[in-house]
């Protein structure tokens, strides 16, 4: 394995063969390609195996609560929109516990790169269904099969108005690294739903299962500005075909361009003005 300035000497707790390793490698490649240093980077993690990612590379790290990564990332970005913020989250973290924050972050179009490690199962809590688990899947908890339809993150992102929607596969590291670079240069909310096998708890959606189904949208000549085509891709059942690449991208005004106060400079860099406060007090 090649070395990277983002490497860190720390024991990794992921299972051997975990899809997360491919995602981690792709992240480092993308950050290198963007000429970033660890000091330039703020990684925000949710809770779950994906949420641990910021611990496994050299960066600034904010690691908080299950489901709340996007809310924290929104706050950090409002405070200082010059920060390069990447969120590492999982299907349970982002689409389950954090579902409301997910929808709101899309609508705000906060300039974030969101990497959703989607292995269709809860790993850290040992094998329960996740929001993206297919209906009827038998798990360690759902003995008669899951009773809820699977959440479609790509369709939901498109419907909510996301300005950059992509899908990657942890087994295609180079493509994923390119997608992360694209997402980080997108001026707005960018989500990459990343298919990955869970070697311990998901015996259905294995590496081989994905490998049989994935195809590259660029090879297929997909135009990411075509919403109808993007929608058709989103609605194609994963059991048949899994498109990877940029599914949809559009111009949009990022959150910090929508607010006059942030158009001038980041919130953190304003000087305190006691005279203005005094004037507001005396006008009470």
């Amino acid at each position: 394995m090649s070395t990277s300035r983002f490497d860190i000497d720390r024991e990794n707790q992921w299972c051997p063969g975990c899809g997360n390793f491919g995602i981690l490698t792709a992240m480092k490649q993308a950050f290198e390609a963007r000429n970033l240093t660890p000091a330039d980077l703020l990684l925000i993690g949710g809770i779950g195996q994906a949420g641990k990612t910021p611990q496994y590379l050299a960066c600034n790290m904010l690691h908080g609560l299950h489901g709340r990564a996007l809310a924290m990332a929104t706050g950090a970005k409002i405070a200082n929109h010059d920060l390069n913020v990447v969120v590492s989250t999982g299907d349970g973290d982002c689409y389950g516990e954090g579902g409301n924050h997910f929808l709101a972050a899309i609508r705000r179009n906060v300039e974030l790169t969101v990497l959703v490690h989607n292995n269709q199962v809860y790993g850290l809590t040992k094998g329960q269904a996740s929001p993206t688990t297919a209906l009827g899947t038998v798990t360690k908890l759902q003995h008669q099969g899951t009773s809820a339809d699977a959440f479609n993150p790509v369709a939901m992102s498109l419907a909510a108005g996301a300005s950059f929607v992509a899908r990657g596969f942890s087994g295609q590291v180079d493509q994923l690294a390119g997608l992360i670079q694209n997402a980080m240069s997108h001026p707005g909310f960018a989500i990459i739903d990343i298919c990955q096998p869970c070697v311990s708890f998901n015996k259905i959606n294995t590496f081989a299962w994905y490998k049989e189904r994935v195809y590259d949208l660029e090879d297929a000549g997909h135009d990411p500005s075509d919403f109808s085509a993007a929608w058709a891709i989103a609605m194609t059942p994963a059991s048949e075909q899994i498109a990877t690449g940029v599914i949809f991208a559009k111009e949009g005004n990022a959150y910090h361009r929508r607010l006059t106060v942030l158009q001038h400079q980041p919130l953190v860099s304003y000087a305190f003005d006691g005279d203005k406060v005094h004037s507001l007090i005396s006008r009470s």
Partner: protein
Amino acid sequence: MGHDITILIGGAAGQGIQTIGSLLAGICHEAGLFIYSYDDFQSRIRGGHSYHLLRIDNQPLTGPSLSPDILVAMDRNSFDLYHHRLTKRGRVLLNSDAGDTPADLPENIMLSLPLADLAKSAGGAITANTVAAGVVAAMLGTGLSRARQAVEAQFRSRGKKVVEMNLAALEKGYEAGQNHAVDHTLTFTGFAQERVVMSGARAAALGALAADCRFFPFYPMSPGTPIVTHLADMAQEVPIVVEQAEDEIAAVNMAIGASFAGVRALTATSGGGFSLMVEGLGLAGISETPIVIINAQRPGPATGMATRTAQADLLFTIHASQDEFPRFVFAPGSALDTFHAVKKAVMLSQRFQVPAIVLMDQFLVDSAMTGVISFDPAEEPDPAMETKWDQKETQSSQNDTYQRYRLTADGISPRIHPCTPAGLVRVSGNEHGPSGFPDENPENRCAMVDKRFKKLTGMKEQMTMPDVFAPESEFFLTGWGSTRGGIMEACQTLRQEGVDVGWVLFQDLWPLDEHKLTDLLSGKQLILVEGNATGQLGVLIHSLTGIRHYSLVAKYDGRPVFANYIVDKVRQIQGVKK
């Protein structure tokens, strides 16, 4: 006593009763008088019943009174509800638009006027409330020119036509009220000088700005909403962001994210929203990220009574979240105190890198009073903060040696902003080692819990002990937060009756120095006066000092604790001898 005048303006939501109050308050304030006002309303936009209380005096006031000298009944319902509370010199203005004028009060006491008809003749039925304000201004003898100035100030932003219409309405009312003067000793000849009229909500907003808070993520919830509404109004003038979050969970986590990135953040809510924020409160605790949450209390649990008042979240806020960590809890006693309490909460939260909670309530949020707020514009937000930032950490981030949770003598680890060459910042809600990486080693766990609790010593030193009045007394009215004014006034009344009673009033509530508190309260008979059913301050005092309270005046009907209520209850308490 007896110099002050209380005006009660009752009506349905949508009748503009607050406008009447604010016009009259404006006249009195500009004339150098002191006011105290309070709004009581239902959780509805139109109809129902609301009232506005305005009390006026030559000297500073600490609370409202419920006995009107002037009752403005914008509907018959308001007359029926309050006319029995009129003082001996009382006068009534009844809106007779609806036609059903009661005949049981003599004409010299009750003035029955078709306010909407008068308003229509002045140019628009919509100004009925300005007609009413004109009548009351005449009853008070404010002078027409002072009343005109207040109307101009109130409506200036709405354009010349609106001002003219309201001036005409004012004059109609003033003329009608001239022969119904109320006997009083107020003089309308002074000036406001440096004094301001401040509501609890506005004071909270300004206190946050004075402490350099810039980010206000927020989910609407009564009675916390007016605090952030004030900030939204101020956002044109100061560089702040008010963001309506998708829920209170998002609000508190956004605050944490912003604080991590170097911007001071505050959110306001009520008990239900605070309940949702508790998870985030714990994250702020373990990650040592400063945030401030204002909990404007209302009766609960669950939805409870949305626009009513309560003081029942004291023990909840002190103990909220799983496990243990240091935090601040403040409960300002008045609108003016709120400015300083919120400012202090922000400062100390930053200095000690702990969450701070400010307990307000609907009564405090919606009360306004006259006073002076001292704020030096040249003052830095907090000079003491300099030592809390790691200025010396200049090593390259390649070395990666900065430790966000470095173990220190006072438990406070110097911060640096993330994403600077000074070092990599790692913050975690998992138990972590000094570097910020998760660490479950038992020795480290104990070291980190101990580190966080080391801050308590310094935190306690920053807390102001409760104020005491008449320390030689045997009995002490004992309260916290917004009951302050009512307790002070009740104490004065009781002492005039010969009751041996003083007061002890808390504003800084947590963490308290148990030894100082024991010294302060030993040997005293504490009569708790609280807006809850169980006497939560009594529980707290007992847990810290072993001192049990003597008696409890508990009020949990959702309404404020007025002075006369306390006086009546204390008189009933056996053992307090005249």
